[in-house]
């Protein structure tokens, strides 16, 4: 091994060697974490009985319920959450920190607890619940209750991601748009939204995953109609593990492509823009 006395090339050699060693260790560590995260999914491959792969009774209905109502919940979350996220990103008035802190509450509350809170607030014996029931909307064990539960599961995540996305849009570009003759709405549509789209896409993907996979809130508020997460639980209780895996595979098949597609698309667009 060369020492410091052996010529001017030594420092560069030493730096390269230590850098290589560090890079090797970093790669190994990253690989370990990767294996740790994905190992249970390998178990799923081995545990599935591929010779007798079939869905159980009611699984198709659960898939349909999850897809339909999750899409609805996602659309409502995005439409209602976007203005709030924009307001949070753009307003810097006194006391805004209170809103920021309160927004964290749904994220910090355990899903089961949110379910109980929703039952107390929207349940048939609460003032709000009875108000809804007067117009024929019942918010316990009904499709509206299911969608409501999913909105509470997904919307806070969308708002947090969307707010960060809007904050990332330089205000100067919005101002320039105004000086170029575009009003606030046109500016939002043509400048803010396209520039925030990568962050918004991440918010949609995150919200979709939360909405599709929500179990705790749905379990309390809308056990019926059964979506995929509740049906997984029912299959496990009534039939056993063998009935869980096929539905789980279907869940991955329907829930994962959207965030995956959004993530890859966002990555490509980011590279193209910068």
């Amino acid at each position, binding site marked *: 091994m060369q020492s410091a006395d052996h010529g001017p090339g030594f420092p560069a050699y030493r730096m390269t060697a230590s850098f290589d060693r560090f890079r090797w260790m970093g790669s190994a560590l990253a690989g370990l974490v990767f294996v740790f995260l994905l190992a249970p999914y390998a178990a799923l491959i081995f545990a599935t009985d591929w010779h007798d792969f079939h869905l159980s009774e009611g699984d198709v209905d659960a898939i349909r319920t999850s897809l339909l109502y999750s899409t609805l919940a996602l659309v409502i979350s995005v439409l209602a959450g976007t203005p709030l996220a924009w307001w949070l990103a753009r307003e810097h008035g006194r006391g805004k920190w209170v809103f920021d802190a309160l927004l964290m509450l749904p994220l910090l509350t355990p899903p089961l607890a949110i379910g109980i809170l929703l039952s107390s607030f929207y349940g048939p014996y609460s003032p709000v619940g009875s108000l809804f029931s007067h117009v024929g909307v019942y918010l316990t064990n009904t499709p509206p209750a299911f969608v409501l539960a999913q909105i509470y599961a997904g919307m806070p995540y969308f708002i947090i991601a969307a707010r960060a996305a809007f904050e990332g849009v*330089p205000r*100067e570009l919005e*101002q*320039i748009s105004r*000086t*170029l003759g575009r*009003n606030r709405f046109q500016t939002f549509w*043509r400048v803010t939204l396209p520039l925030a789209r990568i962050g918004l896409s991440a918010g949609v993907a995150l919200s979709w995953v939360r909405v599709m996979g929500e179990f705790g809130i749905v379990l309390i508020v809308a056990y019926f109609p059964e979506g995929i997460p509740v049906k997984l639980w029912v299959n496990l209780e009534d039939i056993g593990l063998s009935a869980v895996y096929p539905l789980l595979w279907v869940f991955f098949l329907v829930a994962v492509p959207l965030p995956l597609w959004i993530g890859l698309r966002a990555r490509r667009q980011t590279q*193209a823009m910068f």
Partner: protein
Amino acid sequence: MNQSAPALHIRCQMQQPIVVDISLQVRGFTVLLGVSGAGKSSLLKAIAGLLPAQVSPYGDSAVEQRPIGYLPQGYALFPHLRAWENVAFPLPRSAHRHTDALALLQRVGLEDLANRFPSELSGGQKQRVALARALARKPQLLLLDEPTSALDMATRDEVLDELVREVCEFGIPVLAVSHDPHLAMLADHMAILRDGRIVQEGDPGEVFARPRDVAAARLLGFRNFLSGQIAGSEHNSRLQVAGSGWQMQAGWQPGLSLGTSVQLAVRAEDIYLQETGATHCCPNPLSVQVKACRKEGLSMRLYLEGPTLLEMLLPRQQAEDAQIAVGDFLKVCVQPRHVQIIR
């Protein structure tokens, strides 16, 4: 000055974020000079309607209705739109929107780069795309915020010349704010902003020749200031000014009686060496000693100590010939017409 240049009188009173109260004639290419933090950018934003202020004209209109083109520092091109889409942004949706945008790009010489994204353009190219975009609305006033700040030194002068030529071609009054006196030299009209007010306004030739006070003179590039008193006059053509241990002749100015305290301002580049063995006279001779010297590109900046501290900028050829070193004694001269009297 270009007498036929389009003109507009602007008044602006603003309280926040900085107090500004100005009344300014924008004539052709007008440069408002001010130090950093003087409120130049805020003033432009207020005129454009992006900051609350009382502005005349157009002050009653919403931002999007003001016929004003605004180019901020860094140009603020939309990164998600191609060059032609940026230019087409203010244009109404129509069949010839694309063609119109390309025509504007052609006017600034960038039609070949129409399909590039801003990240694929140089600083000068971005500036021209932003200019074409600002002009697409056919504004009646164009505002430029520090147009030289994002340009590299290699292409700065070239891009500036083109910019001035292009905005002049469009025939609308332009107000550029800057701290760069070189930009003001290219202007049809200029003003100096200090403490939220216009302290001097006029033709660049006049303003550069007669800065109103020391602060204005500093902003205009003067580096040497000497305090003295009027000691005499010569046939209404020159004034004699004396300080402690020095005496200088300056250009005539009316209304200065004997004994009046004045400041003299001299540019570093207007001080020159008396050639060795030269027989012609050396106006305003000063004997000085070199205390320090610094290479400044191809020139040499000398810090001199004599009757007062002085700075001089020696051209490359003279610096090479003279072989000046720290500690050398020199005799330097200044033409009386280059000595400005500031009251």
